[in-house]
């Protein structure tokens, strides 16, 4: 802890601060700053709204075409057409909330050498980046998720959540999705400490998450062997499982199990993050920035 300093500029060295209160204050301020930071770029999100709308529309037309040849209440791999449309629409709306840029952020910091500025401060790099991503998500909630939801719900026949309880669990699960994806992105970004360019790694991760999370296609559409693989990976907890909650395909009394599975993955990935970060710092402090 700081020794008493005598500079006339100081009045006294800082008191010992309760670590939890300090964390709240520091990372709360980071969230706030990230929010303000995004405000400078709110126009950028108008193009994002069009992109999302395009994605959802394409899926909508594909699924109506697929179901057109069948009876009105036919199911494919357990999904009816209205469920399918809901799955896609709500899936993309949720994505606008759990999505984060942490990997790109780290890559930029490492490439520009700015990362050493973070090591020069008594601050947790990992928490700082997650807090920053949370601030951005809060921003998107207001300026992106709300308008995009309005447009999508108005244009497409999206079903309401199975029940209020299901909706509450779905919201909680989406918060966990954010935390889990944040860890995945953090670990992906840390690769920049070892490789000259991680553009390929980031792109691969992007598509892997889109497919294996079930964002593009419900996991029940996957071939059997792939379903087995996906069962063993964390990605399904990002999109597929929360959507199952929304649609009521998971009974309410099993909802805590879904959250628990997410929690386990979050903890496991968090530990991996910590481990990789320690190695990354070693690389940096042995080889220079």
């Amino acid at each position, binding site marked *: 802890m700081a020794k008493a300093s005598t500079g006339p500029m100081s009045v006294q060295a800082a008191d010992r601060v309760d670590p939890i209160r300090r964390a709240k204050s520091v990372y709360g301020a980071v969230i706030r700053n990230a929010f*303000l930071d995004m405000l400078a770029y709110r126009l950028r999100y108008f193009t994002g709204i069009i992109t999302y709308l395009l994605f959802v529309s394409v899926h909508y037309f594909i699924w109506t075409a697929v179901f057109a040849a069948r009876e009105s209440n036919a199911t494919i791999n357990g999904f009816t057409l209205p469920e399918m449309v809901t799955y896609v629409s709500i899936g993309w709306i949720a994505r606008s909330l759990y999505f984060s840029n942490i990997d790109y952020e780290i890559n930029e910091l490492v490439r520009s050498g700015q990362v050493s500025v973070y090591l020069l401060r008594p601050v947790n790099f990992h928490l700082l980046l997650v807090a920053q991503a949370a601030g951005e998500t809060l921003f998107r909630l207001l300026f992106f998720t709300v308008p995009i939801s309005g447009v999508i719900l108005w244009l497409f026949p999206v079903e309401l959540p199975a029940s209020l309880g299901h909706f509450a669990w779905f919201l909680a699960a989406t918060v966990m999705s954010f935390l889990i994806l944040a860890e995945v992105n953090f670990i992906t970004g840390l690769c920049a400490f070892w490789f000259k360019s991680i553009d390929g790694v980031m792109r691969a991760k992007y598509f892997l998450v889109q497919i294996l999370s079930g964002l593009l296609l419900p996991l029940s559409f996957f071939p059997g062997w792939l379903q087995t693989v996906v069962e063993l990976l964390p990605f399904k907890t990002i999109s597929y499982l929360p959507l199952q909650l929304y649609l009521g395909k998971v009974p309410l009394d099993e909802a805590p199990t879904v959250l628990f599975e997410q929690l386990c993955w979050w903890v496991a990935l968090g530990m991996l993050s910590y481990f990789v970060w320690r190695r990354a710092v070693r690389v940096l402090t*042995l080889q*220079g920035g």
Partner: protein
Amino acid sequence: MSGIIKLEELTKTYRSFNRREGVWGSVKDLLHRDYFDVKAVDGISLDVPEGELLGYIGPNGAGKSTSIKMLTGILKPSSGSMQVNGYHPFRDRKAYTRQIGVVFGQRTQLWWDIAVIESFRLLSKIYDVRQVDFDARLKNLSEILELEALLRLPVRKLSLGQRMRCDLAASLLHNPKLLFLDEPTIGLDAVAKDSIRDFLRAINRDFGTTIILTTHDLKEIEELCQRIVVLDKGKIIYDGSLVKVKAMPGLKRSIVIDFAGKAPLEELSTLFQGRAQFSLQSERRLVGEFAPEQLPAAEVVRTVLDRHEVADLTITEPSIEQVIVKLYRDGANGSRVAGNG
């Protein structure tokens, strides 16, 4: 007074390897690498008393950045011992960072798109600065650095000089005992440089902050630092006072003489044969060079004034550039210049 920075035989070795040529060479590199060690910092020892303003200079690749990185705790030394303000910068990094302020001229520690004041607030939280202290320091710093008008602007709208002033303030909000500055005036115009220099002098004088200044701008060193440490090829080739190094043998003074009539080039060249070199700059103006230990300035002046009518005359001490170039040359021959100041 015991030193706030104590380095002994501090060394940093990077491991590198020779890349072989061509495609086949790259494949071979994958299997077996021909490693060798590069000593970026090669056994430097340094003792800096508290409150000093130290100029840390050297050509590119001399090991300045590497040693600053070790001093700030973000690079692990390969060997040697170091202690800064009672801490080992690398091992005690988290605690140590609270004691220091760091400014990299080419980087900013401020958020790009939000008002400067928001970055300051966040930093004060990170460093656990109490509200009263924060207010007092901010008031103080914005007076000296004239930040008042800048605090509400986002960093991207600031000029380089304004940004640097804000960065300096940011690095001092937690009242660090040591301030490390890496090229703080790079790319700034003369006015901005001047105000930053004044500021550094002021905080060093008034608050006793120990300042380690790395720069390529030798004028800056000359104006700010009593003591300089010159680095070359990872070794300290000079450590001592600026005044002493300027009296080093082999350095030349220059003289410019404007005569009332035609400049007597040949006459003076013969008179000071071997002790001074003259050349004609215009019809009436002569410029010359001489080493003070071979030829006292008084003798030159007396001789010239006795024989000719002179309109104007200036003598310039060896410039710091000359000093540095000479130090590098001597350093290249392996001798460490004695500096005991």
